[in-house]
């Protein structure tokens, strides 16, 4: 099968392979990763045909351009030897108009050396005319240098480094990444509506890749907030639904009969109003959904409690307190809950409970093979595989060490799960899970995201088992609103 070299962004490295795999799964083709180091700026893959690399250029958020690979080497001697051994690759291009583009990656090469390098390809004997504008074939040279953060401002250093690339590649241009410009068109900065919980456009699209979003699918965010995870799915043609316990997140500040809720305004801006089936206000633990087995993917950024608190209908700070049995009659003879501004009481929703509930909910709502994609916050050093609750009928799709975004002392890892069960099963009960309530008392190791919010405000001081409510209250009082987005 033919080889292709992709120029790939160095951001979000651990999300790269999962994204490419998801694209291949979505369009039903095989992809093999040929590069021995899969985390450089150039990634060589094996695909059956050009059409497949076009799909990667359509959807790959981190892919900047792609060439059909004809030869490569650790030096130009090796490269030319490789190309001489495969002269058949050049056969279809011998009489075409052509040009050669020189691209050095993580390093600048002088125009003089670029010209000299291009001249060394004279032996190929291309018969077609050189045409710098719209040639029939554009040959490309990628010189791939190691990315450095230091030293590159020093001229002598740069000169010494010149030519000391890791590898050089030669091939013909297939095209440029068509998904990457979406980072600009969908940038939060220019979005008609956003909030401090909005996910940045790049990560929104990367997460969405994992959902296999496509026309005719239904994708649901149960913690939809300002909707930032749904615009990408809608862009790829999926129908989307969102719900949130806090209607103000969905609506924004504007009030009144004719106002368009914020999330719908942003959907309009992106031309995807028709993809937004609905946004609803409810507590995910008190859900009005009638049945399971009809959602193709769930995508969500659960409340970590750092900025947008995880809460659920109920009373009590650390322990559940009894609720009213009967509606509350106001002095004016009306019931409190029938007032327009009525909001029920909320109690905290511990993250470990929430995570397990989320997976159980996905087990119920998803169609067979449907996907659950979410961020799991974690205190980096304490993370172990056990942190992802095991649920019958759901399995994690993990590539290597997983996809992690690291913020130093804490991180978040993107979890992708697939529903392996073929039935809907019973709806989750959303009761407090007793195992987790006991972490406070026991000396056993708690999952890395246990009481994540408290840990965040304690700057992740190591701890064993016991957590006191005082810490929580103290930290709540003293903490400024500095938090991760």
């Amino acid at each position, binding site marked *: 099968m033919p080889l292709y070299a992709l120029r790939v962004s160095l951001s979000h490295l651990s999300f790269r392979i999962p994204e490419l795999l998801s694209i291949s799964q979505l369009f039903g083709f095989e992809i093999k990763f040929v590069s021995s180091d899969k985390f450089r700026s150039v990634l060589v893959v094996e695909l059956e045909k050009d059409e497949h690399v076009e799909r990667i250029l359509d959807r790959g958020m981190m892919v900047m351009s792609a060439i059909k690979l004809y030869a490569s080497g650790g030096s130009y001697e090796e490269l030319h030897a490789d190309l001489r051994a495969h002269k058949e690759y050049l056969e279809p291009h011998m009489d075409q108009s052509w040009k050669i583009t020189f691209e050095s990656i993580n390093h600048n090469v002088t125009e003089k050396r670029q010209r000299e390098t291009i001249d060394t390809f004279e032996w190929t004997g291309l018969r077609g005319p050189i045409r710098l504008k719209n040639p029939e074939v554009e040959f490309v040279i990628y010189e791939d240098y190691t990315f450095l953060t230091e030293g590159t401002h020093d001229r002598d250093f740069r000169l010494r480094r010149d030519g000391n690339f890791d590898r050089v590649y030669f091939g013909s241009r297939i095209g440029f990444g068509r998904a990457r410009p979406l980072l600009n068109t969908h940038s939060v900065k220019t979005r008609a509506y956003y909030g401090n919980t909005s996910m940045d456009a790049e990560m929104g699209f990367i997460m969405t890749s994992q959902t296999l979003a496509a*026309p*005719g699918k239904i994708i649901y965010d149960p913690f939809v907030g300002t909707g930032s995870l749904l615009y990408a799915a809608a862009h790829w043609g999926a*129908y989307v*639904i969102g719900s949130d*316990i806090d*209607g103000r997140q*969905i*609506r924004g500040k504007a009030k009144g*009969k004719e*106002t*368009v*809720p914020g999330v*719908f305004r942003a959907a309009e801006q992106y031309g995807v*109003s*028709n993809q*937004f*089936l*609905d*946004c*609803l*206000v*409810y*507590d995910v633990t*008190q*859900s*009005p*959904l*009638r*049945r399971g*087995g*009809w959602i193709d993917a769930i995508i969500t950024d659960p409340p970590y409690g750092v900025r947008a608190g995880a809460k659920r*209908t*109920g*009373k009590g700070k650390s322990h559940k307190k*009894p*609720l*009213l*049995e*009967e*509606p*509350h009659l106001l002095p004016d003879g009306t019931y*409190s*809950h*029938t007032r*327009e501004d*009525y*909001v*029920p*009481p909320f109690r905290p929703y511990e993250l470990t409970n929430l995570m397990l509930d989320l997976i159980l909910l996905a087990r119920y709502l998803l169609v067979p093979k449907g996907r659950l994609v979410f961020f799991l916050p974690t205190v980096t050093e304490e993370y172990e595989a056990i942190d992802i609750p095991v649920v019958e009928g759901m399995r994690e799709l993990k590539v290597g060490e997983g996809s992690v975004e690291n913020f130093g002392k804490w991180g978040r890892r993107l979890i992708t799960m697939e529903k392996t069960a073929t039935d809907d099963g019973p709806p989750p009960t*959303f009761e407090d899970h007793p195992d987790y309530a006991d972490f406070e008392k026991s000396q056993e190791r708690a999952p890395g995201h246990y009481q994540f919010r408290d840990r965040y405000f304690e700057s992740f001081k190591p701890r064993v088992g016991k957590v006191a409510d005082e810490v929580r209250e103290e930290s709540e009082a003293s903490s400024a609103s500095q938090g991760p987005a």
Partner: protein
Amino acid sequence: MVRLITHNMLTCHVRNCTKDNFPLVFSDVELVVREAPENLDFIRRFLPKLDWAALVDTARSLGDESLPGTQPEEFTDEQLRALHHVLMEMHVEEGKMTCRGCGHIYHISNGIPNMLLAEHEVGR
């Protein structure tokens, strides 16, 4: 929004309300029809998830008589188009959804339904 495809998936979830809790009944409705591109494959695929009787009742309560009372075994393209119109193009922007079982009223404003339960209504 609320579209009828969503409405067909919603039930009253008040504690101990298990009878006549579906479908929720629309009243004081402001209905808007917005044309949406057809995806009849999607409609066909979604059919088994629908509650037909509830959908027909609801559509009729909003003045749309295009759906047959009993679900056809095989849908013609024309019937699928009518279904597309009912599910995807009819939006309830303002109004109420009332539970026939317990009487809870769910309010819709600016196309967004408030389905939060009151303190005495949540499961314990």
